[in-house]
């Protein structure tokens, strides 16, 4: 039986961490609020791993998870098994991670684990099922294209991603239309291996028994060693000031600004400072919100650091009526200029901003399901393990005013930015 290697204290909750011999990271935690358990597998892949020829395949692969496998020959059998176990399930593909998760009664835990293993390890990629799924994904693509924000998303991809496909999760229709079982298998061999994934089991379980079940059921997953994920280069680059006019809905104006942010792997201190800085900006009692929203033209505004492994961003964004977009931009620029000076901040506010990040973590513990499918997989990917996340609280609390101004100086004041102005007139204005 595997020993639990480490018991990590997650804001008072015991999170047991282990790595199986095949390299699979396993995290378990008990939550006996309700007789259900959530099982999530996170795989380090996504649009950021794609090329122009494979753009959209990480997402296509995610769809094929819900199809036939060695134990369940087709999607109909798969659907029946889901009903038999009362499974509530979903999956998401983002730029930097793909997550698959189910919740079911804890009494059916082992069956749920076997269900996940079969889908993860033995997908059939049946040609007929792929043909049908091609049409399904096309409808998903068309739904996305109907969103009022579609033009903005496309503009961002094409402006801040030198390789735009790395920012485009849904992918290109031409790639979706031509995807074959062979390329699915290539994806599987490269990324769907135990050493490139993590398993999260949280809920009404005994942690040690859950780990033993993980070892027995997922122990056969091959280690792989073929993923290039950890060697990928940064996906974004903003080398010069750029302004893009984007066509948007009637009556709606939106200002969005992106700058390159610090990487967890190369400037960890910068990321902590970035989070405290963002938390400060979103205090409704401080000047950023007061000048722009409470007494200004924005209906809402935010500024913050968006932690991403390959596309860390400092972003500002806010909704403003189209006829006041010039005024809004001028006020935002004035705030950005002012936040480079120490006088912009007060000590109480900085302490409050750090404390808010701690409280945010306490609040995130409310639902073990949310922890299993969102918080923990996100940080496992971003931090290349859990160490970053677990030392987070002490690190943000240690941030001082000089850390904040250093951050602003390094990543905002003297850095080029990509500015997107969404108005009904778009490029015509």
């Amino acid at each position, binding site marked *: 039986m595997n020993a639990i290697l480490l018991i990590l204290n997650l804001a008072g909750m015991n999170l047991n961490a282990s790595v199986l011999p095949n390299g699979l990271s396993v995290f378990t935690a008990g939550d006996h609020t309700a007789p259900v358990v959530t099982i999530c597998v996170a795989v380090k892949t996504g649009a950021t791993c794609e090329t122009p020829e494979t753009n959209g395949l990480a997402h296509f692969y995610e769809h094929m998870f819900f199809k036939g496998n060695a134990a369940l020959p087709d999607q109909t059998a798969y659907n029946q098994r*889901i009903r038999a176990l009362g499974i509530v399930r979903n999956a998401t593909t983002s730029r930097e991670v793909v997550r698959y998760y189910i919740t079911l009664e804890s009494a059916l835990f082992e069956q749920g684990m076997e269900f996940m293993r079969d889908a993860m390890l033995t997908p059939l990629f049946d040609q007929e099922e792929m043909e049908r799924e091609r049409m399904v994904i096309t409808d998903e693509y068309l739904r996305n294209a*109907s969103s009022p924000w579609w033009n903005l998303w496309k503009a961002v991809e094409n402006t801040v991603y030198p390789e735009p496909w790395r920012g485009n999760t849904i992918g290109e229709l031409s790639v979706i239309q031509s995807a074959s079982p062979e390329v699915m298998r290539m994806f599987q061999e490269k990324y769907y291996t135990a050493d490139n994934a993590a398993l999260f089991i949280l809920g009404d379980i005994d942690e040690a028994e859950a780990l033993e079940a993980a070892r027995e059921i997922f122990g056969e997953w091959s280690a792989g060693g073929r993923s290039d994920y950890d060697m990928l280069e940064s996906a974004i680059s903003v080398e010069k000031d750029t302004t893009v006019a984007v066509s948007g809905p009637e009556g709606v104006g939106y200002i969005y600004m992106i700058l390159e942010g610090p990487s967890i792997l190369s400037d960890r201190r910068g990321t902590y400072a970035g989070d405290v800085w963002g938390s400060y900006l979103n205090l409704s009692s401080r000047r950023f919100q007061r000048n722009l929203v409470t007494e200004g033209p924005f209906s809402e505004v935010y500024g913050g650091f968006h932690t991403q492994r390959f596309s860390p961003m400092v972003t500002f964004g806010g909704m403003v009526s189209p006829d006041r977009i010039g005024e809004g931009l001028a006020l935002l620029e004035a705030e950005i200029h002012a936040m480079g000076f120490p006088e912009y901040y007060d000590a109480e506010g900085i302490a409050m901003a750090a404390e808010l990040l701690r409280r945010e973590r306490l609040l995130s513990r409310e639902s073990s399901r949310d922890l299993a499918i969102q918080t923990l997989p996100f940080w496992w990917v971003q931090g290349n393990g859990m160490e970053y996340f677990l030392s987070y609280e002490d690190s943000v609390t240690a941030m001082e005013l000089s850390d904040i101004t250093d951050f602003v100086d390094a990543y905002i004041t003297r850095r080029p930015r990509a500015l997107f102005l969404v108005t009904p007139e778009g490029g015509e204005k």
Partner: protein
Amino acid sequence: MIAAMILCAVTLLPENVAAFHLQNGIQVITRTIPGEVEGLSVFIIGGTRVQSPENQGIEALALEAAMAGGGSFPGERWRQVMDRTRAELTGSYNYDFSRLHLRCLSEDLPLLAGGLAECLSLPELSEESVERVRRQAVSQLNLERVDPDRRVWLTSNIGFMPEGHPYLLRPDGTIETASRITSADMAVFLERRIRSGNILITHAGPTGPDVLRGILENTFGVLPEGGQEVPGVPPHGAPRDTLVVEEMDATTTYVVVKFTAPPPGHQDQPAFQAAMMVVDELLWQVLRTDHALTYAAGAGATTTYAENWGYMYVTTSSPLHACSLMAQVLRSVAEGDVDPELLQGVVRTQVTMEGIRAQTMNAQCSLLGAGVIATGHWSTLFDAAERFGTLTPGDLSAALRKWADTAAWGIVTGNAGELDMQKPFPLGIHPINEEGLVVLSGGIEVLFPGSRSETVVLTDESTGHPYALVGDRAKRLIEEGVTGATVLGRLTREGWSVRQELPRIHVTEVRREP
């Protein structure tokens, strides 16, 4: 006074639920759940039923503006408090009630509950906060206007709800009303609405009932007494199948179809809800798995509105084919083609869903409060899985046959000119003519003749479905000794039949007597 603990006789009902009233009469339902996070919901009962076409959205605007500060928590101080605690205060607004929900850490509950009560009872309604809320509302309404996925639900309402129905009013208002309503209007409205008789409070979290009572008595317990009579809701449901098509900038087609569903507390409600969950499963199987017509297909039933509806939803590039299959799926369930495995799956899934909801205080507060408002009982929304477990496939079919009558289709598409669907698909459960009348033809049987239970039943020869005939004309069929007929009438919830599960037809005409 010690709160009276309600002990749960049914195993699936949550434990540690208590109910009490504050000194001004506000009812409080609380569920004690260990942890660090508290949820506190304030329900203001009335929704669009106490609004008009001219002021629709006023409650949402006024409550959002009120939450910016008031009493001894004026804007600047209240913002400090909210910042320091990292509490979340959110509003949701619907046809029957508004709900303000506070999510915070346990240590902050007394302070935040006090602040929230003062914001509501002594709202500052500063010019800045009113204008900010107005800007937010108008922005969201502008976005909704161009978002086909949100728009299509409103499009289907046009055919589904009769003119003047309170559910046709928008809880979030319209761009026109949101632009026009003044802070003075809001103040007058809040003065009338923030009264103990209009308010219900629910709580979930670690704070026990006695401590909670102490916190709330000093805050919400001093809100003014009184309340407002909330008008009833007329039934909705189109007299005939309808199709409303809206063209907008969209690259695929969005479809919603609505039909009537049992009101809260009605004996048919569990069966109808379970039937719609089966329909949901089948839509996934038929439209997505078998025919690959859609990425998004779903079905369900509302359960807590004063008047409910069932619905099916799909996005597709082939609306004609998709809608035809949607109608077929519904019909197949109504006609009794329900695999027991599907029903078992629905029960199991519901158990899982209830477990997931038990993990968040917000969901617990919502379920407790919506249950009380819908039926008077907090437990109403907690025992669905248990109720489903007693149902047979036949119960599901009978509930659909009884309630799902005419179909109100709403379609939003990028090119209405090329839409391949020109008229509404009948759900086909009840045969309906051009005038919207149900037309039934078949043998007539009188159950318990001459007794107080006397009921006329016609079994329609085209579908094999039995109907109870009510009204004076139905009685005359008995007097005339008719054993077979073609009758016309309207579906009704009036009248009575000894077979409660049958849909009732108020007979208006007997056209042919074979």
